[in-house]
């Protein structure tokens, strides 16, 4: 077991990639065997993630150097700097790993029925596993260049998956937009990495963090990195691609896209807190992120409320929720240099943002799966065409209500627990931000009241009288998310203590992250 945990970080990335290339071969022989190996593989990966999480929380940062004589040998003999590919997994990386593990397993279970009639399923599962493996890579890597490589793999596989239902023209357009936006973001990130490499001759995040001087070029790199990752996570005004792509992708892929966006949020946090840390203009950069967050919250929710396409409505709500995370993160960053403020409310703001990340993936994931279930049965996403579906799709209606209440921050669900952490900590920084946040939550409730009312309530429409509930595997996938939402809602203290607080401590522990790399001398 100790050996397995010792190699777990690389296995978590390698197993999905390996199965990805086996899937088409197995799929040609038997579809059931292909499905079994995909689910079995991701279940094994999820087990590894939880085992690694336990190990990281109990024993600290996990280092894995590829090609070294032992995994902890970060700086090879004869060199002064880390040159190999190094995976560095701390509390926040493993927290992200938990999100990706849960979401990917749910997405695959849901896809078994939802994608049953589609063509090209072998390619679909291959791309899905590539996306899962690369998202794990993004959150586990300790190297900027590998972050770029994994981002590229996730973007390319994501675009292909969005466009995978070739009979829909809007899916093709969504895939095209996703690849254009992702390519621009990736290229700019590569350019920023080049600026840092040119100055310090380093790519390792820990080693770079120890060397960074915050020169003019570092500032340019910072601006580019922040803007590119904010675009990838759908921050306003660079959010417009998000509603165009999330709404047209198969919903199981949209759930993975949410996890990929969260990985971009993780990268943003890693850049700001670990790479630059206290060297940057904390108040200025913090306020830039807060401003984008507030814009995202308000624009996202006001655009969501006017949508009549249920998936676009949820997609705009994703923009809004990303705003909450950005505000929490921005406040934490703005007071990073002020020990008293950081201890009083800054740490809580960051914890709230981190807690909201997993909650967001869960409840938005559930809402998208419900929207997919509706589309699966009635073939439309248009709320104007819906009505009375709650009479025949009782479980689906219940899941939507649960996701909607959690997203709106209604107690006792998980969204409330993370939002209250953000509200109360941000209030001490600037009360106006909290007032905007509460207003946005109220409008979010109005958004989902409209959607629920339009789709599920009212008299049963004659054309939908014969509609049945969705297949059991789709119900099972939604049940998994619903159960986790309820557990997280009822026991938020345990979640915060077990995974959120270690993630926050890891994010603020820049020195530990650096020492784990440069402190190990051969």
């Amino acid at each position, binding site marked *: 077991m100790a050996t397995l945990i010792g190699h777990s970080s690389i296995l978590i990335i390698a197993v999905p990639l390996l199965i990805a290339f086996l899937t088409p071969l197995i799929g040609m022989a038997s579809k059931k065997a292909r499905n079994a190996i995909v689910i079995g593989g991701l279940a094994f990966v999820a087990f590894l993630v939880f085992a690694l999480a336990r190990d990281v929380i109990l024993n600290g940062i996990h280092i894995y150097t590829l090609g070294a004589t032992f995994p902890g040998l970060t700086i090879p003999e004869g060199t002064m700097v880390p040159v190999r590919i190094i995976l560095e997994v701390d509390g926040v990386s493993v927290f992200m790993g938990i999100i990706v593990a849960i979401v990917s397993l749910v997405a695959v279970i849901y896809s078994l029925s939802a994608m049953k009639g589609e063509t090209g399923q072998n390619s679909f599962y291959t791309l899905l596993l590539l996306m899962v493996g690369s998202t794990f890579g993004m959150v586990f890597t300790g190297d900027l260049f590998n972050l770029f490589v994994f981002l590229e793999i996730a973007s390319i596989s994501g675009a292909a998956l969005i466009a995978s239902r070739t009979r829909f023209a809007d899916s093709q357009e969504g895939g095209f937009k996703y690849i254009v936006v992702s390519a621009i973001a990736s290229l*700019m990130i590569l350019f920023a990495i080049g600026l840092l490499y040119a100055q310090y001759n380093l790519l390792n995040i820990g080693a770079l963090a120890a060397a960074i001087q915050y020169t003019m070029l570092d500032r340019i790199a910072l601006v580019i990195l922040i*803007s590119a990752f904010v675009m990838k996570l759908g921050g306003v005004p660079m959010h417009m691609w998000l509603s165009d792509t999330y709404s047209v992708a198969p919903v199981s892929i949209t759930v993975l896209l949410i996890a990929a966006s969260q990985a971009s949020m993780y990268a943003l946090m890693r850049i700001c807190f670990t790479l630059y840390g206290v060297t940057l203009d904390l108040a200025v950069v913090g306020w830039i992120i807060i401003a984008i967050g507030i814009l995202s919250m308000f624009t996202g929710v*006001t655009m969501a409320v006017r949508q009549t396409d249920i998936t676009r409505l949820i997609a705009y709500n994703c923009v809004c929720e990303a705003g909450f995370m950005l505000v929490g993160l921005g406040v934490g960053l703005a007071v990073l240099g002020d020990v008293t403020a950081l201890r009083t409310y800054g740490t809580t703001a960051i914890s709230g943002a981190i807690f909201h990340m997993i909650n967001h993936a869960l409840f938005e994931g559930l809402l998208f799966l419900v929207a997919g279930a509706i589309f699966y049965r009635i073939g439309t996403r248009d709320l104007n065409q819906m009505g009375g579906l709650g009479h025949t799709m009782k479980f689906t209606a219940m899941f939507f209500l649960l996701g909607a209440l959690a997203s709106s921050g209604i*107690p006792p669900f998980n969204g409330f627990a993370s939002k209250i952490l953000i509200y*109360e900590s941000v209030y001490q920084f600037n009360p106006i931000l909290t007032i905007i946040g509460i207003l946005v939550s109220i409008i979010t409730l109005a958004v989902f009241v409209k959607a629920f009312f339009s789709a599920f309530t009212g008299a049963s429409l*004659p054309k939908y009288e014969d509609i049945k509930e969705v297949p059991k595997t789709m119900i099972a996938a939604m049940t998994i998310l619903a159960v986790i939402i309820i557990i997280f809602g009822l026991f938020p203290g345990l979640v915060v203590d077990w995974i959120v607080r270690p993630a926050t401590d890891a994010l603020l522990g820049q020195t530990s992250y650096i020492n784990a790399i440069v402190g190990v001398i051969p």
Partner: protein
Amino acid sequence: MTLIVESGYEFWNPIIWLIAFAVVMVIVYFFRRRGEEKYKKGEAQAQIFLCGEEVPGAEQRQVRGGNAYWGFFETLKEYYDVIVRPHTGIVNDYVVWFIAVVAISAIILFVVELVG
């Protein structure tokens, strides 16, 4: 380790909230039980009554999603005119917004550096 989330300012305990919710539900149930018990499902008293007019079919009775919050959108018409305009659906425009954010962020950062 605790079941409570503490923000450093206040705390949140969903178990207490659930107990309070259960108490409220018991009170609501108490009042509900004191209501009319002679209701019979499927009889005339359960039918829709529109002042004697013919009740339209389910398709016509349903208030559609597009009709919800009409007053809200009318009141905020000017805001929505401004906010919807940039959502062109053209990917070139998305890239322009990215460039704008990079430029504005860089200017803010450098101006603050010069002033500071």
